[in-house]
């Protein structure tokens, strides 16, 4: 019983990281109606940038994060304005194919620069400290921090969408791009901002991943798939749903892992397929047009 509680707790905490990965994906789909196939690769790119920055300037991972996250946001804005906006339209193929191409480029660029070795960021004792919860259960400080960040990011986005002018522009551009433009909203700029936020959040996720574990240059696609599964499990268009989806995925993986080391990731995929078959709109659906 105790072991199972522990398993579920670890799964729950992993869910926070998956939610961070998934948020950017949900955001770019919500606003631009596009999926960035290179989403996971951008997270890994951010992680490797943080590794390089931390090593070059002898910074701790969190200071490196402060430098890398704005850089990734700027990259996201530039990518959207210069490349991705040109591909948006009725046809869903061009943005998918272009970002697929980006994914291939990023992976091989990382392999070329950093070789195939895995890297990680050393956060000192923070990486290993844990809090006792009583009853013999303990939770790591780092996973708790990641979960806290995920909740904070989602709350901030919720506020942004509901209360701010930028959020109104996001919703307007998402609902009806042409009418939004007639109302004086610069869609191209709005899309750029949305991609900047998506990229900043996924950069945070990538850097946390590198603090928690070793990352390799070819890990991006796997991260994209988990993020995507979290979005679908949670329900399209639902911000808090991505957190729920991430938690379901994390728990499924933790449970599978307890049975057999080879089954962890598989159990996550199977949970995703089960949701797809039983509740194709996810657990907390908001939009119905996808």
């Amino acid at each position, binding site marked *: 019983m105790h072991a199972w509680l522990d398993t579920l707790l670890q799964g729950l905490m992993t869910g926070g990281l998956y939610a961070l990965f998934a948020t950017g994906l949900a955001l770019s*789909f919500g606003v631009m109606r*596009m*999926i960035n*196939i290179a989403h996971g690769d951008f997270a890994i790119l951010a992680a490797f940038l943080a590794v390089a920055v931390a090593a070059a300037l002898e910074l701790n991972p969190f200071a490196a994060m402060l430098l890398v996250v704005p850089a990734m946001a700027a990259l996201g804005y530039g990518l959207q304005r210069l*490349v991705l906006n*040109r*591909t948006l339209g009725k046809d*869903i*193929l*061009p*943005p*998918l*194919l*272009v970002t*697929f*191409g*980006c*994914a*291939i*480029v990023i*992976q*091989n*660029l990382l*392999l*070329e620069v950093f070789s195939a070795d895995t890297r990680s960021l050393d956060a000192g004792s923070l990486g290993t400290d844990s809090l006792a919860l009583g009853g013999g259960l303990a939770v790591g400080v780092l996973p708790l921090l990641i979960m806290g960040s995920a909740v904070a990011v989602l709350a901030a986005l919720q506020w942004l969408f509901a209360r701010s002018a930028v959020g109104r522009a996001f919703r307007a551009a998402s609902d009806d791009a042409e009418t939004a433009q007639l109302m004086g909203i610069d869609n191209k700029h709005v899309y750029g901002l949305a991609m900047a936020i998506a990229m900043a959040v996924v950069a945070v996720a990538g850097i946390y991943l590198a603090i928690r574990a070793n990352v390799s240059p070819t890990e991006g*696609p*796997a991260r*994209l*798939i988990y993020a*995507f*599964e979290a979005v*679908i499990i949670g329900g*399209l268009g639902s911000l808090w749903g991505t957190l729920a989806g991430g938690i379901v995925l994390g728990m499924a993986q933790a449970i599978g892992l307890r049975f*057999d080391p*080879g*089954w962890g*990731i*598989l159990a996550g*995929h*199977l949970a*995703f*397929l089960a949701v*797809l*078959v039983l509740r*194709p709109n996810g657990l907390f659906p908001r939009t119905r047009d*996808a």
Partner: protein
Amino acid sequence: MPEAAIVAARFDVERGTRASRVAAGLGLLLLVAAVAMPWWGERAGQRLLTEFLYTLALAQMWNLLAGYGGLLSVGQQAFVGLGGYSLVAFGLHAGIDTFLVVPLAGLVAGLVAVPTAAVVFRLRGAYFAVGTWAVAEVFRLLIANSVSLGGGSGLSVTQTVRGMPIWWRESLTLWCAAALGVGATLGVYWLLRSRHGLALTAVRDSEAAAASLGVSVRRIKWCVYIAAAVGCGMAGALIFITKLRISPDAAFSLDWTVVMFFVVVIGGIGTVEGPIVGTLVYFALREVLSDYGSRYLIALGVVAVLFMLWMPRGLWGFVAARCELRFFPVQRRLKLATETQP
């Protein structure tokens, strides 16, 4: 009805072009030369041709899916891998003749595609893309966890061709590859010229309009998905006959889909000629850049992105739009008898 007779006398529906007749003759000559290669070619060239032909088969399947069916699959490696592992199950364990496994692998892939379609067809567009990918990962992990199929580290399938003279093995491989490459091209061409092809192109251009004219969009997409699975499954079995070693990571590698994607985007998505042109360009680039390791893949990625941005219909789309050149004409053109030749 006399009017109908008059109208019928005054127009003609043209389905071929002079280019298509020249191409058919030329293609036949090339095919004969390719099939006869074991008697005149050297072994390295023969292997390259084999690879060319199965790559063409894969590209045609992906073109059918993405270019005509509007089904952007990033998970075709699922069926390549299943084809490869059919070789282990039927060739290695059941002792069925290696080259008979190739059609059998197509059958297996097709059968597995039925429940797979039921799941992934719940997703649309971009979500379908990543969904197919997740399914491919499921297959990879299931096979990596099954000890009898070699587990995660894979196994050698050399046993399946032991005792076969090398000349025969390589010739049969080439002929199988030729059957797949040419079969996939002609199969897609035939499909597009048929009634179903008309429905398929209508679906590609506008799903809503096609549905309003009575086309069952869902069924036609389903058929395309199954057909592409069969094609990729057969190619997968053949690929691992040439490689003689299989592992889940190699069989279910995303690289298979990356190659299909690259070839089709460069050549021209949504044309029958495109994959042929794309495969030629892909092999040329690979020969030129092969010394550069991962930089070669970076170049491929950049080239594909540039094409998508500035030449979204690919090389063939670019040429065909300017020269009215069509080697595989799929459209019906009305020629009026009174029309003067331009």
